[in-house]
């Protein structure tokens, strides 16, 4: 193996090392600026679907308390977000000792309904799962709040 070859190998290896470093940096750079915002689509386009869109089939239109002290209370999902809690400003006001003042809310995003826990003391459950982040819910999903169960209905 001649001196020159070894020298070239060495230089080539250092070049590879730096190509790697620089590509890593360029990925970081594109990561900073390259993120696309999907939500507002193109600015010139007509805003999609008028706001009070007719409820599509299979979409829930109201929330109902199906079990607990306040069974029967109904709130219209058209007034989303629907706040559930013991406080006076809640759309569904529950007289349940295990419910926080502002316990959970049901919100819509992109045609999908989500239930989000608002940092309640006793938690919001979907089945046996305690919510830690907004979770999609559909028709018939039973959300347990304290000793109360609310359900999305048509």
């Amino acid at each position: 193996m001649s001196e020159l070859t070894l020298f070239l190998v060495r230089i080539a290896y250092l070049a590879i090392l730096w190509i790697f470093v620089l590509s890593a940096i360029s990925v970081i750079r594109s990561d900073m600026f390259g993120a696309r915002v999907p939500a507002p689509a193109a600015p010139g386009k007509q805003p999609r679907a008028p706001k009070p869109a007719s409820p599509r089939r299979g979409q829930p239109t109201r929330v109902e308390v199906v079990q607990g002290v306040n069974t029967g209370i109904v709130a219209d999902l058209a007034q989303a977000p629907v706040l559930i809690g013991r406080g006076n400003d809640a759309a569904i006001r529950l007289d349940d000792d295990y419910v926080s003042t502002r316990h959970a809310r049901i919100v819509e995003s992109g045609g999908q309904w989500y239930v989000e826990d608002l940092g309640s003391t006793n938690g919001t459950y979907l089945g046996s799962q305690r919510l830690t982040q907004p979770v999609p819910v559909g028709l018939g999903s039973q959300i347990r709040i304290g000793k109360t169960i609310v359900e999305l209905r048509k």
Partner: protein
Amino acid sequence: MATNSALMGFVHRRRRGAELFLLVLALIVGIGAYAAVGLGVDGEVPTNLIGYGGWLTLLVVAAHIAVRIVAPYADPVLLPVVAALNGLGLAIIHRIDLAKDTGLASQQLTWMTLGVVLFVATLIVLPDHRLLARFTYTSGLTAIALLILPMIPGLGTQINGARIWISLGPFSFQPGEIAKVLLVITFAGYLVVHRDALALAGRRVVFVDLPRGRDLGPILMMWVVSLGILVLQRDLGSSLLFFGLFLVMLYVATERPGWLVVGALLFFGGAAVAFRIFSHVQSRVDIWLDPFADADGSGYQLVQALYGFAWGGLVGRGLGEGMPQRVPYVESDFILAAVGEELGLTAVMAVLLLYGLVVERALRAALISRDGFGKLVATGLAAVFALQVFVVIGGVTRLIPLTGLTTPFLSYGGSSLVANWVIIAILLRISDQARRPLPDLAADEAEDPDDQATQVVKVMPEWR
């Protein structure tokens, strides 16, 4: 709130393709170094290049696929960077093997395999990093137990004056490496719950607001115990690491610069006391101040490393062309001296930059993480990484007195390698959670004044 909604419009891409591209380059870095070592030492490409490269590729691809499946939004740069560092480290260790006629590289490859397996396992077992917050005190106790293990007679072994290894059959293991990850989790879990109390409640003494004893007590105790154990074991590097980690996390959690002042005072006080009490601290400082005073004795290691750097110069001697075996422990603490000698300042700078990128990505994950616990864990892990690199590379290049620590991913050392792969897995998990787009719920967030009044509460963990 304005920044929040601005952030909401910013959606991270998955970037798995970019990660794959970088991984291919990282493999070229690792396997290329291996081939170059063979060319330099024997004048031919090593015969087992296919097998070795295939195994390395397999590990990297396995890690990549795992990330694709279980953490699709994770940071695209972390994995390739550590794969490249690990590959380069393997090649350098192989090079030292050839010079010293040892078989450390294959052992290191086994450890790397274990590291990648644990990396994948961590990602699978841990779907959400907030689960770790449940083990705040458990992990603290485990960490202390792990730190005590080497002091048990029969189990612990003393190597080079530091009693930090335990030997189980043919393996020796450094439990402190695992303990540092656990301590980060403990500190983060504790601080995220108590940070408001730590920052706001308490008395003002001279210039510093001291928190109440009951807020600071548990964590201070944990920290004193772990530091005390390390001092008893004469593990200077790890003591420095834990001290710095504690300080950084306290500062980040409470946002009080006063802690840095207190910490600096404590550090210099402690260093002065250690200098007076411990002879090995004195000798380390003496070597640092003038390694050439006893160039053939106590200063031999550092002097040889410095000669290595100098001889390597800007582009190095070429892999296989230098004499890195002259430096004692060149395969572990002093591996950067081998890099500097054979690949020169150019490669040393690249390696330092790669470490910088790891720290930057970890801090980035901390910045964009949505929960306080994730922020603190990512910051803590970044601090561990940064401090470790600073302490060991500063020591090897005679910037600060030498304290033994391994260079992450580069050095020979199984426990350190495995622990570092787990650290990267946790960081990937945090960045995956942070970059994953949430459903857009920001629109109706700002309207209620009650909401804004309770913002302070919202940074508290949601899982309680």
